[in-house]
């Protein structure tokens, strides 16, 4: 029995790889019913009129790209579809490349132009300081956009002076930066805030949801898949739900089996 516990872990690695690959190859469909926290984010954006301003802060880098980039895509599809003006920015230097790519590519699909229908402001250092500076005046925080164009007078920013004038802000985060957005942004300048976070951060959102400091949140690839379902644009996240299910079952089996042997063999050290 105990020998089973000491198998080469590379065998386990292969099992995991198979559990992910096979469901991807034989794409069996999984229903992804949207949960209420994702739905409330969707409804919020859906209720906005044309030419409203949605700020998306892409606060992540390539290491959490696989979870957060699908969310960014789904959100952008939704905003551009509804002709909402998108203001993009990032507080991570390595977030610039990912954010720019997402906005530009999806903007192109809907024929949107930089500076007119959306603006990508780029990166600034100092996290909470950037948020507060934008809360006072967006044009001092970002005097130029990512491409070096002056932000003052830009059509995409018409009617926006500070964060107070933003209709909805979404923070896509891989770290504790969401807390800075709540403490120094939402609570100070009084705008509606939603969060899209890696699944690791997911459980931390619940106290803020209940105190209505957040309008909603998307957690991990699952959250992205739900948003894709709501927007009606199924993509990578939805396709990822089948392997996600299978691999979860595998991990649960591993835990149960490992513990079974552990107890059966008398909890030896």
């Amino acid at each position, binding site marked *: 029995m105990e020998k089973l516990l000491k198998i080469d872990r590379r065998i386990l690695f292969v099992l995991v790889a198979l559990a992910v690959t096979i469901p991807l190859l034989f794409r069996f469909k999984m229903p992804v019913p949207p949960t209420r926290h994702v739905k409330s984010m969707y409804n919020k954006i859906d209720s906005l009129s044309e030419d409203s301003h949605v700020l998306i802060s892409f606060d992540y880098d390539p290491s959490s790209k696989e979870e957060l980039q699908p969310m960014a895509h789904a959100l952008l599809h939704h905003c551009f579809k509804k002709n909402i003006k998108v203001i993009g920015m990032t507080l991570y230097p390595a977030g610039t490349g990912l954010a720019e790519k997402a906005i530009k590519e999806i903007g192109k699909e809907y024929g949107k132009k930089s500076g007119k229908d959306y603006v990508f402001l780029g990166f600034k250092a100092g996290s909470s300081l950037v948020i507060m500076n934008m809360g006072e005046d967006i044009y001092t925080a970002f005097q130029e956009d990512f491409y070096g164009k002056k932000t003052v007078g830009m059509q995409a920013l018409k009617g926006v002076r500070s964060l107070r004038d933003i209709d909805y802000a979404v923070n896509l985060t891989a770290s504790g930066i969401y807390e800075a957005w709540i403490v120094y942004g939402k609570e100070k300048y009084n705008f509606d805030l939603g969060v899209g976070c890696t699944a*690791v951060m997911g459980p931390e959102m619940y106290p803020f949801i209940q105190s209505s400091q957040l309008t909603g949140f998307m957690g991990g690839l699952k959250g992205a898949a739900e948003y894709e379902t709501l927007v009606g644009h199924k993509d990578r996240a939805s396709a990822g739900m089948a392997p996600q299910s299978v691999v979860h079952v595998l991990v649960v089996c591993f835990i149960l089996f490992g513990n079974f042997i552990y107890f059966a063999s008398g909890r030896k050290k």
Partner: protein
Amino acid sequence: MHKTLSTFILSILILSYTPTAFAVEGNRLFVPKDFQAFDTPNDSGKSITLRWPSSPSESDDVEYVVYMSTTIKGPFETEALRIRSNTRYEEGSNYSYHLIDIEPDKLFNKKSSDKDVKTTYFFKLVMMSNLTTRTVKKIASATPEGNWFNWSRSNNFIIMIIFSVLILCCINHAKRVPGLFIRKIKGLDAIDDALGRATEMGKPALFVHGLNDMDSISTIAAINILGRIALRVAEYDTPLKVSNIYPIVLTVSQEVVKEAYLEAGRPDAYVEDNVFLAASEQFPYVVALSGIMTREKPAANFFVGYFYAESLILSETGAATGAIQIAATDAFTQLPFFITTCDYTLMGEELYAASAYLSREPLLLGSLRAQDIAKEIIISVIVFGALLATCGIDWISFIFKPG
């Protein structure tokens, strides 16, 4: 006939409950009896607040429109506000008042040159349905002014003052009275046991620093705990390996361990190379440590400080070698993995408490005590506040209302 009658009865029933319908029906609007404008309190001087009592004619089809001018005689042409009449009520007024803030500067596009000139604005309230329009006679006026204290934040201010005083007092107190009480942290005994076992087995103990530099509280706490472990190790004569990722932490750790050996009276047993820089980045750090764990099979592993995703690989490798493992971290996202792979885990603030307990530094003890008192206050506020609120008494929630 039947239909008309039932409609008639139904309309009487509805009408008696909704005065609005009645008012519109009669082609008449009952305008509000009063209309006030005043400088918005607690603001930067940009906005003016308008307030007026509700009218019985309010409904979905009726609108309130406010026109604005810079002279009392008008012309009142600039539209400052247009709302559905049954919206935007004053909070807590039970729908009997409307309260709305507007920013006149935005509407008039004031030039920056006359920013310092204070302007008085005049407002006219009009009620409109698609049939008729009526104006409130009274013209309200106000001058926006900046305020120097936000009174709605006074509770926040008081909390800040109380907390500051509390911390300063507690630290002072801890300086004067040395033995401030701290409960025993269970995991600390486990450290001694683990070291004892390492001695028995004649194998080394491994102390792994977290991934934060010397400026983080977790690392400072880790250093304090390291001091204690080093002292025991020096007494027991067990080799102790300490891995670091930052040069500054390395230097401090070396000093601490050296001092512990001195204190134990065995400065000769101190080997400087046992406190080492394992790597400079996350994954190489993991790789280096996994190597040490599998090669040297330490009998006890201590993971102390702030950890990120590497926590899982580290503690898993350690568990596979059969070592006793003790973790102490304030990284809450990593705690689940330490709890399931280590024999004992110090969670969150227990790490700071353990460091205060071991170092007996008045600064740490005092601030720990102050934070305890703050928690005590919060616990009582929650318990009493919830109970009183359940009984319908809400002054506690009023006191702690966010500003």
